[in-house]
């Protein structure tokens, strides 16, 4: 059963076609069910009793990256992810979520991360004022991005620590089961750990974590004592303050804005300023900044890898039409996803590894 607010949004979307051209999943699968309209219609029909919320519908609700491209496009302010998230909650309540989704939930319950693996730890100093929140994707799948970032901090003379047991922020679980109490509890535990560290600044490497910390935590009545800043914004400050000197790399690149940075945090300038500082000429993809097409999320990749391969290819298709042969991103999840489909003659690199080259 949907909340009244979610039902209002689903009813508004059920007969509206306006945003389908932006859905990264729909554009690749070509399925009518992969449109916000279809999902709104299906849920609206269940609320009217003329359809039942079955496993087939639940599966469709998981075929969405929650990238907010539709929300961003809606001039009347409706939010398909609102009812899609609630439908996921409902799928869990009814025990009809697809098996791979349940497997990921099981992984989170066992290990705190979507991979069901022990999360690697990173070197840490005690009692530093700055804490680097690495996040599970960077830690488990893209450690080179995290390590490059740490070396940049070292070069800038920033003393930082990491958490030995880094609790999840709630971002993954919230996307998997909707914003239930369990997700808020994860957020609360994370706040507690951040507060206990004594850090006054928390640098967040993964924009999915930063988005939930900045946007959702306050809604849940949670607030960390420390200031929360994205890794890119922090680095941009260091360069502006002259703590990190970059030489010109004299290259051309295109930049991928990941969906949470683009549409929740609306952080566009820091990565571009950093690229400019390293002498990178930017050849933008046609859909960039708040219109950026999502390449897939690590969570979706964990339960529907066939579809996320298509969404990653979809984003590469945009990059291939630029003048650049180098695609840069700051998002560990984008690194994992785009890394699955690098076309011939193209190179994928995270911003921090690239900046490290400009420091040498």
């Amino acid at each position: 059963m949907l909340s009244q607010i979610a039902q209002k949004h689903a009813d508004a979307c059920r007969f509206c076609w306006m945003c389908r051209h932006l859905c990264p999943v729909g554009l690749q699968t070509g399925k009518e069910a992969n449109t916000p309209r279809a999902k709104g219609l299906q849920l609206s029909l269940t609320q009217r009793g003329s359809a039942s919320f079955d496993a087939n519908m639940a599966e469709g609700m998981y075929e969405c990256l929650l990238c907010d491209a539709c929300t961003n496009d809606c001039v009347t302010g409706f939010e398909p992810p609102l009812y899609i998230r609630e439908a996921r909650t409902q799928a869990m309540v009814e025990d009809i979520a697809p098996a791979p989704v349940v497997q990921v939930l099981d992984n989170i319950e066992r290990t705190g991360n979507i991979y069901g693996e022990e999360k690697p730890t990173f070197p840490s100093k005690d009692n530093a004022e700055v804490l680097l929140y690495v996040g599970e994707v960077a830690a488990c799948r893209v450690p080179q991005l995290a390590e490059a970032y740490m070396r940049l901090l070292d070069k800038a003379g920033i003393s930082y620590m990491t958490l030995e047991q880094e609790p999840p922020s709630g971002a993954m679980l919230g996307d998997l089961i909707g914003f239930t109490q369990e997700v808020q509890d994860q957020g609360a535990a994370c706040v507690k750990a951040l507060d206990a560290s004594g850090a006054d600044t928390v640098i967040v490497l993964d924009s999915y974590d930063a988005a939930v910390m900045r946007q959702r935590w306050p809604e849940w009545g949670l607030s960390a004592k420390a200031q929360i800043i994205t890794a890119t914004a922090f680095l941009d400050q260091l360069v502006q303050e002259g703590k990190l000197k970059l030489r010109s790399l004299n290259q051309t690149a295109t930049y991928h804005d990941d969906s949470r940075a683009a549409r929740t945090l609306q952080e566009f300038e820091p990565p571009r300023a950093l690229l400019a500082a390293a002498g990178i000429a930017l050849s933008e993809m046609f859909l960039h900044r708040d219109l950026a097409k999502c390449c897939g999320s690590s969570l979706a990749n964990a339960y529907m890898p066939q579809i996320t391969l298509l969404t990653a290819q979809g984003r590469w298709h945009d990059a291939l039409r630029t003048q650049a042969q180098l695609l840069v991103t700051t998002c560990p999840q984008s690194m994992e996803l785009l890394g699955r489909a690098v076309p011939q003659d193209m190179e994928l690199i995270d911003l921090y590894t690239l900046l490290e080259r400009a420091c040498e």
Partner: protein
Amino acid sequence: MNDMTATDSLVCVKFVQQTDGTPGRTLNPADEAALAAALHHRTTGKVTVLSMAPKSCEAGLRELLARGADKAVLLCDSHFAGSDSYATSGILAEAIRQLGPFGLIFCGRRAIDGETGQVPPALATKLGLPCVTNVLDMEPRSDGILHCRRLLEEGVEHLACQTPAVLSLCEYSYPSRAPSLSDLRRAKGKQVEHLDAAALGIDPSACGLAGSPTRVEQASPHTSGLRRVTQLDLDTFVETTAKLFREVLI
């Protein structure tokens, strides 16, 4: 009836018109806090939500079941229509007598539509219970004494009171809590109970317009003192401000 050993609590809620002019109703903000407080302080007892409302509000009550309430009761009868705060508190009191006993009765301190704030104290009077209004937070003690902080015009008052009691909560005093998966599983299949005037044994002359000593003659929006606010992007802001300056200066 209500007794000091009762561990069950009850929350009175009202569904008010949407403030943005869209159709449908939404839970009154202070009542959100009342429910959150009841769930927060729930120990072994059950939380019942109670609303006197048209049948269309049943969906709203079902949502509160999903958000952790154990039981929901809708007081729905054509005779109830038009009840003022006096009649309403009488109907609620009768329902509470039938549904109880309750250790604590939570209300929002006022509804954003009527803005009377009269129902909680009236309800307390009719039930013969103490009433604490404008509650910010509270601490129930095992000895049956409740310690509350209540909002005053220029400060905060600490107040102790015996239970059972009627409390009216300030808006946003307790943050709303999302339901857990287990709450939601528990709520599956739960139905909203309905009670009408006959079931409550209330004479139609004691409710609705007939039982209400006051009448709303007219309601109209404020016409003076309204500010017109438009959100502008930076470029438009600069352009508009420059234009305004030019108009004022020239």
